[in-house]
């Protein structure tokens, strides 16, 4: 009996008996996978740990059927666990001063490596049980990055082609990877990324003696940009920086990020506050406060989502080029907003510049005032405005809130 049509999924829905369903599914089976007895807890844990500081989530990815981003769990630090995030191998020939897998790290852990079969098998079984949306595969460079890159691509290839895997795949591009491997990776993955780690070549040379910033990293990003088509890589390319390891200022990071968004067409950037690891060359270097990471994300958000101009955002930096530990939008508003904004006449661009008003509440204010004049703070609160933050910058009904708190925190 056909009972309807699900408007969301555009599929015919049939109400049938359980026995009929069982009959219809009779010839279907899960993929049977070979044994993977060499996957030990130690290996799983160590290679998993290697990506602890990598930030990622599965993002909405418009393949044939759009894949939503879902966080299947959260770690105790509140970060989303959406993907099986792991290294292919923790064997690495680079000398990155912040990294525990570097050859110059004195605390050498045992080295492990997966095989493409093992990774495909783990990914499929976690995916089937709904623990994850897909795979995030990074790696040490091994003896030779091309060999490892090939294995990473083969893993994705097995998942997609042998097992018909429709989940999410994020592949890291290793610095210096070949044009051909990057192209293959882009055909199979939803998203690829190559980590900038540093904001400039100079800072990179302080952090890592074996990577050429211009050639190994920026040039590969351009390869990815130039090979992007309407079909491959639905979730685009991203990058990540280790904040504070190379001693760079927030303004230097900002400059780099603007370049990345404008010239590379980056989908988004991730920031990871530097934290010294035992045995590494940087083990005595001071850890960066977590709030620095948070403020950089806010800065990034102002540019990407609120569409603030770089010249506006620049006003949030102090004379040394650093963000303070407070909301950059508030700092920018204090610099720029010399007269209060009247919500009844302001453009949505002006509204968006008021702290406590976001894109949605700006939209609501514009809709609201078409019907009535906004006369009170409670009407704004109903539109989703955070009154306490916004009030000092607003003029409602010719009346303006005390300006005192505008200048103190």
């Amino acid at each position, binding site marked *: 009996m056909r009972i309807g049509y*699900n408007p*969301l*999924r555009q*599929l*015919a829905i*049939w*109400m*049938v*008996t*359980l*026995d009929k*369903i*069982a009959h*219809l*599914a*009779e010839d*279907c*089976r*899960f993929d049977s996978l*070979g044994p*993977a*007895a*060499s*996957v030990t*807890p130690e290996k*799983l*844990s*160590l290679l*998993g740990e290697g*990506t*602890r*500081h990598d930030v990622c989530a599965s993002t909405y990815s418009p393949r044939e*059927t759009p894949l939503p981003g*879902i*966080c*299947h*769990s*959260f*770690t*105790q*630090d*509140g*970060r*989303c*666990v959406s993907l099986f995030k*792991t290294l292919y191998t923790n064997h690495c020939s680079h000398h990155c001063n912040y990294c525990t897998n570097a050859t110059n790290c004195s605390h050498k852990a045992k080295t492990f490596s997966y095989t493409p079969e093992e990774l495909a*098998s783990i990914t*499929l*079984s*976690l995916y*089937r*049980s*709904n623990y994850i949306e897909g795979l995030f595969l990074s790696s040490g460079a091994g003896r030779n990055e091309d060999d490892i890159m090939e294995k990473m691509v083969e893993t994705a290839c097995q998942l997609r082609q042998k097992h018909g895997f429709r989940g999410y795949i994020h592949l890291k591009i290793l610095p210096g990877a070949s044009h051909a491997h990057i192209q293959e990776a882009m055909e199979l993955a939803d998203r690829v990324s190559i980590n900038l780690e540093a904001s400039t070549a100079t800072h990179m040379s302080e952090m890592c003696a074996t990577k050429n910033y211009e050639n190994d990293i920026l040039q590969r990003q351009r390869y990815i940009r130039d090979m992007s088509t309407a079909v491959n890589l639905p979730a685009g390319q991203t990058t990540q920086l280790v904040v504070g390891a190379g001693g760079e200022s927030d303004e230097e990071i900002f400059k780099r990020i603007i370049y990345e968004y404008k010239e590379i067409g980056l989908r988004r950037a991730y920031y990871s506050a530097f*934290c010294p690891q035992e045995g590494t060359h940087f083990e005595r270097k001071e850890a960066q406060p*977590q709030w620095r990471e948070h403020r950089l994300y806010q800065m990034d958000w102002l540019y990407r989502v609120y569409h603030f101009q770089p010249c506006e955002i620049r006003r949030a930096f102090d004379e040394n080029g650093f963000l303070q530990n407070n909301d950059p939008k508030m700092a920018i508003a204090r610099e720029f907003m010399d007269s209060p904004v009247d919500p009844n006449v302001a453009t949505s661009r002006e509204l968006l510049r008021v702290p406590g008003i976001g894109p*949605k509440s700006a*939209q*609501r204010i514009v809709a*609201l005032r078409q019907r009535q004049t906004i006369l009170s703070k409670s009407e704004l609160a109903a*539109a989703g405005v955070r009154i306490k933050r916004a009030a000092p910058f607003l003029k409602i009904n010719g009346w303006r809130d005390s300006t005192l708190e505008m200048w103190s925190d």
Partner: protein
Amino acid sequence: MRVPEDYHYYLSRHQDCNERLLARARKFTSKDLEISTDPDAMRLRKMVSAVMGEVHRMLAFVRLKPLGSQVLYGYLKPRHRIGEHVCEHFARRAPGIIAVLGNGSESWISLCREGRIMRDHGRGIAETLERLSSAFDCPANVPDAGNPDMGDLDVDDLWQVYYDSQYCPEKKNLGVFRQRMPRRDQDAAGLRLVQNKKEVTLEDFFSGKE
């Protein structure tokens, strides 16, 4: 949250929704709901977002186990009437495989094949699984049958080891953790039952007792 065009569907799934409320909703478009500050519209928006939120968290938190190699089943006891919607999601995620979700008193069955969704609604999940296992002639009480051989690690162990490896102690923030994994939703998806599975029997799992 963006209010979808067919938000009436989600509204109708709310535990407190009735005909009168749906009729009142007819005068609002999704756009109205999204931007209006009208108290009626705001109440509807809240209800829609409660249902969509629960759907989203169930898609995230429900864990599935294979029964034989044709069935994936999991625990679900949602507050809103979203059982079949969530079940359908899992059926689409694994085409050709029967998805069964449920609890002690009801269950939802869904299969996606050749562009069609087939579904049924049954009594307690234990009974449904019993019927399916006799249809397929496979034992019902072997929860991990059909799982790929992972050496000594079953999929839950695999997950636990991996999950523990992702934790950065220097970033510990339990407040955010609790906010993002509300206890109520963990219970609705049977997550803590799964986590405590070593101590509970399969019957407890089916009847929803801890």
